[in-house]
């Protein structure tokens, strides 16, 4: 089956998300759709999947024009999609999820034909070596397996074109490799696979054709043999450096000391289990690990957002535990939260107000109860310039900014104080390549200025690029703290729970 998009244009108000996009996907190939976040990849796929109506352009299947009113139509025509966030009913079994939406019935009583669904799951699972039990309950399955269930769902509806939207965002390096193997198998069995991603490594590994989208337009196609630098510069529109330039760290005395930190959440689940580590002044310690292994809770405990069940945290000899969040911040901790839209900025507030969100109570921004709008505006103008926040005005709301620019606002705010410790969770998640470069430089500069830096990232590339030392977390424990030049395979195994010694 051949899928062709011709001149697809989709506008939201006066913003053009897709501008006359042409795309040709042939069966038995892997077509990578490469672009930064916000480039319009997901919009395009939502148009194709019938979730949005295109303003212009047409969709052709085997040279015949089609018109989808919704996902149901698209699926009936043989297009399947695996969303970045899985669309699975958690308390249901694999077979129940697979039959959901096109339930077969049998007998005069029209009972659900669960047996047929089980057989389908077994058949597809065996064909591709998925190793999925049809009676397993979704919530008991690891993320990688859930993703395979999504793929089975699509294939059970005889998808000839399979769209994978950022499929590796939630996977460990090993799971990513397994997924890429599956993609190759699907291709060899004649499926057309569209891989939406911004990760260059994966594109190089499996793509047959690469289409690069920037600001809603197709800016070029590339061969899989193209270098990462070439692909990145196509994506961003200028030359970018893929490595973080940094001098060797000159670590000083331990600045942050965490001992036996234990965090138990509201459901009585131990999220952090007796973690101890030090971060020295002038050093970046990066915490690697698949998301949800306690990294977030460690950073939250440092700031005081959660109260640890046990353990101690001291900064420069001073006990942090039990302090109010404001006092922790003012004692020299900079905090870049993992979810910047939820925790980092107030979307309705102006950029200027977001820049002083944690310092508005200090001079010169206020005196007594009265805010000083002049001082606030002056500081904002300076920060906007310094951090290259792309905005028309400091009075624009933070919600109107792109993710990258929101992150620059958060960084500008946190780095404008004299810091002893910078804690940054997923500092470049969802950012474009250009912004990533900038954020990384700033983090390294903070280290060079003598701050201790703790980075949490689920992107192994980022961990390796930034870290002076790497701590790997798994199931709430630190599996090991290793040098920055540890090879990726070892790190990958540690992220899956293997201890350092076991590998050695």
């Amino acid at each position, binding site marked *: 089956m051949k899928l062709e998009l011709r001149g697809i244009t989709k506008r*939201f*108000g*006066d*913003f053009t*998300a897709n501008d006359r996009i042409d795309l040709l996907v042939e069966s038995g190939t892997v077509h990578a759709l490469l672009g930064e*976040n*916000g*480039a*319009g990849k*997901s919009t395009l796929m*939502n148009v194709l999947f019938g*979730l*949005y109506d295109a303003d212009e352009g047409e969709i052709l299947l085997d040279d015949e024009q089609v018109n989808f009113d919704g996902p149901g139509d698209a699926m009936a025509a043989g297009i399947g999609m695996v*969303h*970045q*966030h899985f*669309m699975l009913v958690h308390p249901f079994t694999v077979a129940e999820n697979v039959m959901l939406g096109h339930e077969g019935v049998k007998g005069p009583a029209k009972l659900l034909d669960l047996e047929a669904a089980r057989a389908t799951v077994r058949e597809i699972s065996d064909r591709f070596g998925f190793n999925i039990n049809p009676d397993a309950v979704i919530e008991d399955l690891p993320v990688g397996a859930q993703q395979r269930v999504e793929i089975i769902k699509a294939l059970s509806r005889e998808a000839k074109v399979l769209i994978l939207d*950022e499929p590796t965002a939630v996977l460990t390096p090993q799971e990513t490799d397994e997924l890429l193997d599956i993609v190759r198998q699907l291709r060899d069995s004649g499926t057309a696979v569209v891989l939406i991603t911004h990760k260059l490594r994966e594109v190089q590994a499996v793509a047959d054709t690469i289409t690069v989208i920037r*600001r*809603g337009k197709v800016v070029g196609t590339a061969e899989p043999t193209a270098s990462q630098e070439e692909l990145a510069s196509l994506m961003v529109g200028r030359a970018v450096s893929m490595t973080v330039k940094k001098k060797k760290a000159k670590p000083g005395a331990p600045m942050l000391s965490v001992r036996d930190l234990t965090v138990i959440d509201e459901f009585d689940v131990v999220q952090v289990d007796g973690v101890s580590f030090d971060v020295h002044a002038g050093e970046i310690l990066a915490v690697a690990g698949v998301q949800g292994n306690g990294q977030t809770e460690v950073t939250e405990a440092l*700031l005081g957002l959660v109260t640890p069940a046990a353990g101690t945290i001291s900064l420069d000899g001073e006990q942090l535990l039990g302090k109010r*969040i*404001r006092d922790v*911040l*003012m004692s020299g901790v900079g*905090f870049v*939260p993992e979810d*910047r*839209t*939820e*925790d980092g*900025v*107030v*979307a*309705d*507030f102006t950029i200027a*107000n977001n820049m002083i*969100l*944690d310092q*508005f*109570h200090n001079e010169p921004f*206020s005196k007594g*109860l*009265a*805010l000083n709008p002049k001082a606030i505006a002056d500081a904002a103008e300076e920060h906007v310039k310094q951090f290259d926040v*792309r905005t*028309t005005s400091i009075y624009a*709301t933070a*919600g*109107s*900014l*792109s*993710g*990258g*620019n929101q992150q620059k606002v958060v960084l500008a705010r946190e780095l404008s104080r004299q810091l002893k410790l910078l804690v940054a969770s997923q500092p470049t*998640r*969802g950012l*474009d390549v*250009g*912004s990533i470069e900038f954020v990384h430089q700033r983090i390294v500069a903070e280290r060079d200025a003598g701050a201790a830096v703790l980075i949490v990232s689920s992107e192994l590339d980022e961990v390796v690029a930034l870290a002076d030392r790497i701590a790997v977390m798994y199931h709430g424990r630190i599996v090991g703290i290793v040098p920055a030049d540890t090879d990726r395979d070892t790190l990958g195994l540690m992220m899956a729970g293997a201890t350092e010694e076991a590998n050695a």
Partner: protein
Amino acid sequence: MSGATPATEATEPQGKQEERGASSVLREILESSSLVVFAAILASLVLGGILIVVSSDDVATAAGYFFARPGDTFVAIGHSLGSAYAAMFNGAIYNTAADSFANGIKPLTQTLTMATPLIFAGLGLGLGFRAGLFNIGAQGQIVIGATLGAYVGFAWHLPVGLHLLVAVVGTMIGGALWGLIPGVLKATTGAHEVIVTIMLNYISVNLLAFLLSKDAFQQPGSDNPLAPPVDGSARYPSLLGSSYSLHWGFVLALLAAVGVWWLMERSTLGFTFRAVGSNPRAAKTAGMSVPLTYILVLTIAGALAGLAGSSQVLGTQPSLTTNVAASFGFDAITVALLGRSRPLGIVIAAILFGGLNASGPSLQVQAQLPIDVVLVVQSLIVLFIAAPPLVRFLFRLPEPRRVKEVTA
């Protein structure tokens, strides 16, 4: 493309169909444009007009012989609408039948008098709404504020000037106390302010009824649930002379509006309130205390509602009864929503409502309409305000523009 993170990008189409939480509904109401608010008022007046026509006896009689003389029906419709809106104008703004300007303008001063408690209570509720709190306890806060203020007014006998000041402060303390309770309960136990404030409304009214059955709160020699009148020294002086009911409480309400504007827009406290209201998680991460904010907001809101009580017991209704708060606490919810929680908007909305209330008697007498029509019009306004998409549909207004991102 929207979506600051891949997460929002991918979930956008599904998110549209998801059920929205109460806070996002509140936010949508507060963010609806002035055009939508104006359209909602217009729509409710038109619908109210239809109701007036339908309920008019003359129209019903004329419609009875519609096919014989259809013209009569239309004349009757025109007449009933004309007299209703004329009665509204005469009752709320200027009485065209009056013999002098001084008497003619009385309805307007009456409108402003009736707007006064609504401004105070609306400011308090608006403050809460902007901090993300659905405080519907203004009714109880008014009652307790009025009770304390009235007690100071009739039981203490202080020098002129000081007495009024102490009594006004008394109403504020009473209201603040009644706001502090749900604030503390929410901050410490997470109890939802909607439920707690509703229950406190009942408690306050029954508490007042209980107090009015005690000698200390009863007029000497009477068993009626009616407190002694407040001393003259504790009453707001009248603003335009004794022939008008308008008193200095109205000026205080306007000052309070300016004060609330300053508090919200120009003070560190308001900065915290707004941050907590828009995004409590980001506010917490930036070191603000969300529980303390809840306590402060509800206490200040209570003090403002208490002042609404002062405009009654120290103003127009100097003898405390269980009906002291009338339905001000609930009308103020509408006023705050109509004014989109902004002080200027609240003042305008309160005057609109004051006018509707003030026109009630003349609607009844002059246009022979049931007073319920006013209530229906008020309720329709609320209904339309609460459903911006409905108003946009009726008037073919465009969807609110979603802020698009500037892609870096």
